[in-house]
């Protein structure tokens, strides 16, 4: 038996080149800790990234890694996973990488349900190109390309993932190490695509955009934890609850309503309507949901590939290369 692995075993000898205080550091810590806890060997782990600050990630992991091209990490990860179903594959991508230049690949990876962890590092800004609006920047965000404020509607990756039928969709904060590890663990154990949106802070170009959620003082008031089977309750003294009114959610005082009126979180429901409603909650009118929105069982892409291969063998027998080359219409010259 080999020694149990520690977090450090999963880190490479390369020094991370991120700004001091970047949200990527705690995520690196959470991912390496999760890997160590799960005990999946290094050589069975592969991290595939696109382009952007966060996409330097693979270089810092002592696993197999592939730092690919802008927006295309899902495509390379798809080929790798299909080719090596035994590998535990992680995609690391940013908001620009996954949702702008790679938007097409994002939705198709979600709908196909490969057994891959998709970490979407969302800092609502383009960092590597030094501060331009991203597809998740809020309306009014002032950047070098939007000096009078951006007016594109921000994209909501959790909503988008749910719309594609993704089987595991979650959101976590870079400041919440424990929360990240829990969700990353669940994502790894989930059979199928696991999309985890990580709000992470860009200290240089968008510092503090997630403060209302990550600040210890305001977090309880501004966020709601998604706990399977439990009513949705939040607030400093946990007096606020979410109740369904028509097709909308409203905030109620838990002391004024019976508990049965509160909405109970059901991530395992195949119908994603409730998860969708939660994904649409807008701060500051409503709290930001954190945790697992959806987690359902469905055949993975790899299982479908295997199933069809077996079906083909059953129908046609094991392929015979010599017969294939000859075809059905050949003739012999003596």
């Amino acid at each position, binding site marked *: 038996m080999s020694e149990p692995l520690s977090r450090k075993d999963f880190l*490479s000898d*390369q020094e991370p080149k991120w700004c001091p205080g970047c949200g990527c550091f705690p995520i690196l810590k959470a991912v390496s800790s999760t890997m160590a806890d799960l005990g999946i*060997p*290094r*050589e*069975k782990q*592969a991290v*595939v990234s696109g*382009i952007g600050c966060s996409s330097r990630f*693979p*270089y810092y*992991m*002592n*696993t*197999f*890694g*592939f*730092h*690919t*091209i802008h927006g*295309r990490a*899902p*495509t*390379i*990860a*798809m*080929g*790798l*996973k*299909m*080719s*090596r179903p*035994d*590998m535990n594959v992680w995609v690391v991508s940013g908001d620009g990488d996954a949702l702008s230049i790679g938007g*097409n*690949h994002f939705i*198709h990876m979600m709908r196909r349900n490969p057994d891959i962890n998709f970490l979407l590092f969302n800092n609502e800004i383009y960092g590597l190109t030094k501060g331009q609006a991203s597809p998740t920047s809020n309306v009014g965000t002032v950047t070098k390309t939007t000096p009078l404020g951006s007016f594109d509607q921000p994209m909501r990756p959790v909503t988008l993932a749910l719309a594609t039928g993704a089987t595991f969709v979650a959101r976590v904060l870079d400041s919440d190490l424990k929360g990240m590890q829990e969700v990353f663990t669940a994502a790894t154990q989930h059979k199928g695509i696991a999309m985890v949106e990580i709000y992470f802070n860009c200290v240089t170009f968008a510092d503090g955009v997630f403060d209302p959620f990550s600040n210890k003082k305001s977090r309880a008031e501004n966020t709601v934890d998604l706990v399977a089977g439990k009513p949705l309750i939040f607030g400093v003294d946990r007096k606020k609850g979410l109740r369904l009114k028509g097709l909308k959610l409203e905030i109620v005082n838990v002391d004024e309503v019976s508990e049965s009126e509160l909405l109970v979180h059901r991530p395992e429901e195949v119908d994603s309507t409730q998860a969708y409603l939660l994904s649409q909650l807008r701060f500051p009118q409503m709290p930001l949901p954190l945790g697992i929105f959806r987690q359902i069982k469905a055949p993975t892409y790899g299982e479908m*590939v295997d199933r*069809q*291969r077996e*079906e*083909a*063998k059953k*129908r*046609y*027998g094991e*392929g015979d*290369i*010599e017969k*294939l*080359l*000859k*075809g*059905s*219409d*050949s*003739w*012999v*010259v*003596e």
Partner: protein
Amino acid sequence: MGPENKKGSLKTDRVTIRFAGDSGDGIQLTGERFTTTSAIMGQEVATITDFPAEIRAPAGSPGGVSGFQLTFGSTDVYTAGDSLDALFVMNPAALKVNLTRLKEHGVLVVNTDGFGQKNLEKAGYQVNPLDDGSLDRFKIYKVNISTLTKNAVAELSLSGKEAERCKNFFALGISYWLYERDLDSTIKWLDAKFAKKPEIAQANKLALRGGYNFAAATEMFPTSYHVDSAQKWAPGVYRYVTGNKAMALGLVAAAKKADLPLYLASYPITPATEILQELSSLKHFGVTTFQAEDEIAAIGAAIGAAFGGSLAATSTSGPGFALKSEALNLAVITELPLIVIDVQRSGPSTGMPTKSEQSDLLQALWGRNGESPLVVLAAQSPADCFDVAVEACRIAVSHMTPVVILSDSYLSSGSQVFKVPNYKELADIKPGLVLDTLENFNAYQRDPETLVRPWIVPGTTGGTHRIGGLEKQIVTGHVSFEAENHHKMVSIRAEKVARIAKELPPLKVYGDKKGELLVIGWGSTYGTLRRVVEGLHRRGFPVGFVHLRHLNPLPNDLKSIMDAYPKILVPENNLGQLAIRLGEIAERPLEKYNRVTGTPFREDEIEKKILELFGRSL
């Protein structure tokens, strides 16, 4: 079964015929059956097809005409031929589109039932050409094929439409009588093809026999034609294949020889789609296919699979190839084995999707950012697509490099007799550098001779490493932006590909080995150029021909062969792309012949150009 009641039989060496009709008339099927029958009878065969770009162009319109042309003969059949000995047309549009190809006094068989007023108008005929004497220079045979077909299948309880649908087999039957074809193989094929619909099989057999017997009984033609079997066929198993089919088979065979799983990721695009379709039906061979969401995803997935240790390929055409450029460079810098098949079509942009062209050579060689060396090969005939695919896989795996294969629309759907290779005799494909131990290994350490880096696939214990699109430190493969290191890496990548030239077989020179004029070609012009040059050489002209399969690196002996001729002609279906490439080594101006019509060269235009050059120089 021999022809009966015929007046006589004329011997001939080569025949070129074309079937044409509406795209719903089953023309391709008819042509394929004639081709297979001819091949089984031991003749050499080459085909070309054209079909409408639109899925369902208006029936009866010139835009909806589908055509299948083949040349069969006892010797030297390298191309589907220029001008037609016989033309079979189902409607006025087919006549209008194809008539210029028919030789004077050529055989013209017309389905008069297709020549109603509506169809004449759709084809733009004011007057019925069957009545106005405009076709007098041909041997015209007017046959009410649709009516006769219905009569032939009357004993079956088919609807009128179903019965009429068999008319292509009636026409085929007529052509079989005219060219003394055996019916047996077609009948067997019908039985197998429609095993689950015996009534349809029976209907088509009745139509086929009906056409054959009609030609015999009515003494329709003054004579039939006899073509001897080819003399030079080596013993072996033969079949006929299209270029796309041969390409798919080549990939499967190569993967087995490399003992690697085959992975193909593609996005549907004319005229490359059949490669994806073909391999999708071979799951029981362990082939994995992936119909990606777009062209970029397709090459991305292939690169991921290559990283994962598969023999990975992606197939596309020019517009898709352009989209793949950035990702292809990722395979260049990560030095992964990857096959990219570009079945070229007429460009620029969407161009003419169903028409052929060899105009992506420079895109393949140089159409990427940075210094981006990779291997470029081109197929010369439909059957050669098999060999090129195997060769590409061998180079990719043993040299850790992406390889681009250039095919084209003409090769992709053209069919040719293919001598089925003995699988056991195909050489094994081996990786270029295998490390004895992974202790202190480096992802970019290299074989000193070939400069090949090791392929350490995910899952390998002790093999964890990172690769990516950023410049690599020499040997370690860590990210490096250091100035001298970059210059070295650029040079190493170029040198690695250049050294592959050492392994290439000597070039073959056809015709005169040391003459006045050397013709240099590449890709699908091979058959036409070789036939013309050999013909002229036999007539005493000091002309030679060299055909290039390897466009990068170029063969080492090319320069000395070029130096042996005062004059060099480079004919291409583009505006001179190989000529630009050869300009690097030629050190003198090259003669060019460039025509870009969407169709292959005709032999006569090449011959004319060569004679012109001799006229000036002799």
